[in-house]
């Protein structure tokens, strides 16, 4: 990052200033600069800049000076790049960016790093700092060495030895480096799932500048943080963050995505019941939340199941239930008989072929007779069956619902049978009819070319084909009617089962813990960023000042 050509940049530079800096003493500013996204992140300040360790970290460089409440002083600029931050007499923050002794327009964003830390959406796996360094460097080699250095520096010696030298402020500032990733990283993940991220209103009375970070699909990817603003109104500013699929995201403010880190919805594990609770590759905060979700869900399930079990076990509720089911099943069989007799006549004024309809009606009536016998056999054991199956309530109410669904399936199996018979017959008839219609016209189906060709048939083929065509054509209404009736019956059963399925799915998928957290507006769930416009500083009015705060997700996107 030695030569920075500021002249050819057409985008605004963004300076990220942690809020704790504003209360500290005047100090030098250290941080990271990324030219590609025009972001400058102030990560550290020190009272002295003579620490070798600081210099050793090549990526963290000297940025400028924090002047506190003093009037602006021109600090010694030994490099051609300098940031000056100070508070003017109104207590408003001012920021100036100097490059090559020229003022460069920039945007200053203040934020509170602690807020972003707490939320589990923003934290990541254990190697987060490594991630940071990796994203800064261009090659893998630098990653490990620098990562080790900085790790050691940060967690090892820093906490003990340097702590005296650098204040708490500096420690926080150093940590705050990584916190900037996570809004964007998270947005990235969410962007993949929900293309339109949260939009928050931003009061922008008279601003026309834009914070643009573009991204591309190539290796030089930046992630866009797109905030549009309009003149007078409160507009929704969608934060669109796109990311690349590669590993080279090269700025602290960029989101890195890779195929390995499956940060899907951080608040909800969208999976079936056998979700991998022991998914260790995720970040600890999210992981913890997922675990809580699963445990709570299972707990509620079990409680409901046990309640139902106790309810069913009282007295002879099971037997009454079984009797009710049995009588319902018999009633259904009786209704089916009536239906078939109706079909054998002239249903709805339609005229069916009487021989065929009688034949099919008798066939299905015999089936119902067999079914009634089966029901009689089932009658004796149904009560016991229900009693024993309610014991599974220990495992959860969803199990009981599933069992009930199965019982329903076995009780309506005759409807399914009828549907299958009628459907197959109808399908066969339609298929034959279409083939014979082609013969009628003197054509045939070319299987090789998948098209219809003209064909020369023999006389007896024609004769037989036409005869069969006529017969099938006149028998089609009868078959079609039976097919329609039994399909409708089957649809009714399917709707019933579908409702039960939905109930079960709801039980299995509600993120209970997340909803509890959302209701209490816990900071664990902070998942967005809101930008507020600060009043302009007196001395440098040409920069835009924003403050970045965490915001919460809408309940709908939790689910």
């Amino acid at each position, binding site marked *: 990052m030695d030569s920075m050509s500021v002249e050819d940049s057409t985008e605004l530079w963004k300076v990220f200033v942690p809020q704790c800096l504003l209360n500290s003493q005047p100090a030098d500013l250290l941080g990271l600069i990324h030219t590609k996204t025009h972001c400058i992140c102030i990560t550290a300040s020190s009272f002295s800049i003579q620490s070798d360790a600081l210099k050793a970290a090549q990526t963290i460089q000297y940025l400028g000076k924090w002047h506190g409440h003093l009037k602006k002083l021109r600090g010694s600029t030994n490099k051609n790049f300098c940031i000056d931050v100070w508070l003017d007499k109104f207590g408003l923050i001012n920021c100036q960016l100097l490059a090559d002794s020229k003022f460069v327009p920039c945007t200053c964003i203040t934020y509170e790093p602690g807020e972003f830390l707490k939320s589990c959406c923003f934290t990541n796996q254990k190697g987060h700092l490594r991630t940071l360094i990796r994203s800064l460097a261009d090659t893998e080699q630098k990653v490990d060495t620098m990562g080790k250095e900085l790790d050691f520096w940060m967690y090892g010696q820093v906490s003990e030895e340097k702590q005296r030298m650098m204040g708490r402020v500096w420690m926080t500032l150093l940590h705050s480096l990584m916190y900037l990733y996570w809004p964007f990283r998270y947005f990235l993940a969410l962007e993949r799932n929900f293309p339109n991220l949260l939009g928050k209103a931003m009061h922008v009375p008279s601003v026309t500048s834009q914070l643009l970070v573009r991204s591309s699909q190539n290796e030089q990817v930046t992630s866009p943080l797109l905030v549009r603003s309009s003149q007078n109104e409160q507009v929704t500013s969608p934060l669109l963050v796109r990311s690349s699929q590669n590993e080279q995201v090269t700025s602290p403010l960029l989101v890195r995505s890779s195929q390995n880190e499956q940060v899907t919805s951080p608040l909800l594990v969208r999976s079936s019941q056998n979700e991998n609770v022991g998914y260790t590759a995720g970040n600890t905060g999210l992981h913890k939340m997922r675990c809580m979700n699963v445990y709570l869900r299972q707990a509620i399930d079990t409680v409901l199941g046990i309640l139902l079990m106790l309810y069913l076990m009282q007295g002879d509720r099971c037997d009454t239930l079984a009797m009710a089911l049995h009588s319902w099943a018999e009633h259904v069989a009786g209704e089916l008989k009536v239906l078939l007799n109706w079909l054998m006549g002239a249903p709805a004024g339609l005229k069916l072929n009487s021989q065929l309809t009688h034949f099919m009606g008798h066939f299905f009536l015999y089936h119902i007779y067999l079914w009634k016998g089966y029901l009689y056999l089932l009658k004796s054991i149904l009560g016991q069956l229900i009693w024993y199956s309610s014991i599974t309530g220990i495992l959860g109410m969803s199990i009981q619902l599933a069992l009930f669904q199965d019982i329903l399936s076995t009780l309506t199996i005759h409807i399914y049978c009828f549907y299958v018979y009628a459907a197959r017959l109808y399908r066969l008839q339609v298929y034959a009819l279409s083939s014979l219609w082609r013969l009628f016209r003197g054509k045939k189906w070319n299987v090789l070319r998948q098209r219809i060709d003209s064909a020369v048939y023999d006389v007896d083929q024609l*004769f037989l084909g036409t*005869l069969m065509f006529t017969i099938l054509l006149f028998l089609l209404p009868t078959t079609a009617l039976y097919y329609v009736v039994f399909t409708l019956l089957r649809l009714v059963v399917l709707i019933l089962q579908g409702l039960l399925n939905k109930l079960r799915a709801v039980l299995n998928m509600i993120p209970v813990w997340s909803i509890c957290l959302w209701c209490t507006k816990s900071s664990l769930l902070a998942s967005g960023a809101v930008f507020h416009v600060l009043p302009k500083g007196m001395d440098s009015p040409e920069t835009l000042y924003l403050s970045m705060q965490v915001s919460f997700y809408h309940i709908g996107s939790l689910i």
Partner: protein
Amino acid sequence: MAAPRRWKKILYEDQSVDDNYVDSSFLDELKKNLCTRKYDYWTVVRASGVVTQQISSVCIFVIVFIYMDNKILSAENLCISVLTMTVLGYIINKLPVRKSLSFSEKSSSRTILDDLKTLLIFTGFSYGLSPVLVSLTETISTDTIYAMTTIMLLANLLFHDYGATEAAIVSQSLSLNAALFASVCLASRLHTPWHAFATVTFAVQIFAVWPVFKRNLMQSIPASQPVLTVLLGMFAFLALLTVSIPAAILFGLVHLFINFVCPAWLTSLQPYKNNIYGPWDEATIND
């Protein structure tokens, strides 16, 4: 300016005239009415007999159905007559042709066994399916059945192969199938399976087998053509007379129209033919 040369109809030489210039040899290569045929009235009359023969066949078939419906004709009689006629026709068909031997060689690709098989198929399936056919359209109203029959027989007339060399609308299988469909429709109106069987067999004979016989006859004895037309016409006319007089009169009129008026019309329009041929036509490949 060069000496005026004779203009040639080419563009690859600069002839110092416009590209679309043509000299006085314009339209020299136009030829008119190269391949028109001159029609003779009586030839056309004779040839139009094919159409009327088919119409007569259709009418005979319908009349037979009406007779059976009115119980004038019994099923057994029909069956017997159909059988005898088939046998007769078959024997005549199989007689050695006197005129051209090559013909008989070509047409003898079907052995007697093949014909027997065809016969078995026809009768067997008709007999087996006749109970089904009888009750097929019980619940459908008679008017619908008659309408469908009419449409199908018209389709038969429309798509029949009348001997033209290459006509686009001709589809032999469609015409035969339409006729069989019509026969099944009519057969389902009758009361016993025997009647249905008889109807279907008769339909097969008159629509499938009879044209084969007729074609053979025409090829061997060309003079039999008009005789056949007249015979069939008279037969149909007389039969129609017994059923309904307006129908008979209509039939006669149609007959006369197609056989006498249409040829006259065609030959009278011949002088007005004006086909233009020239080198601009599409090339036709004659091999």
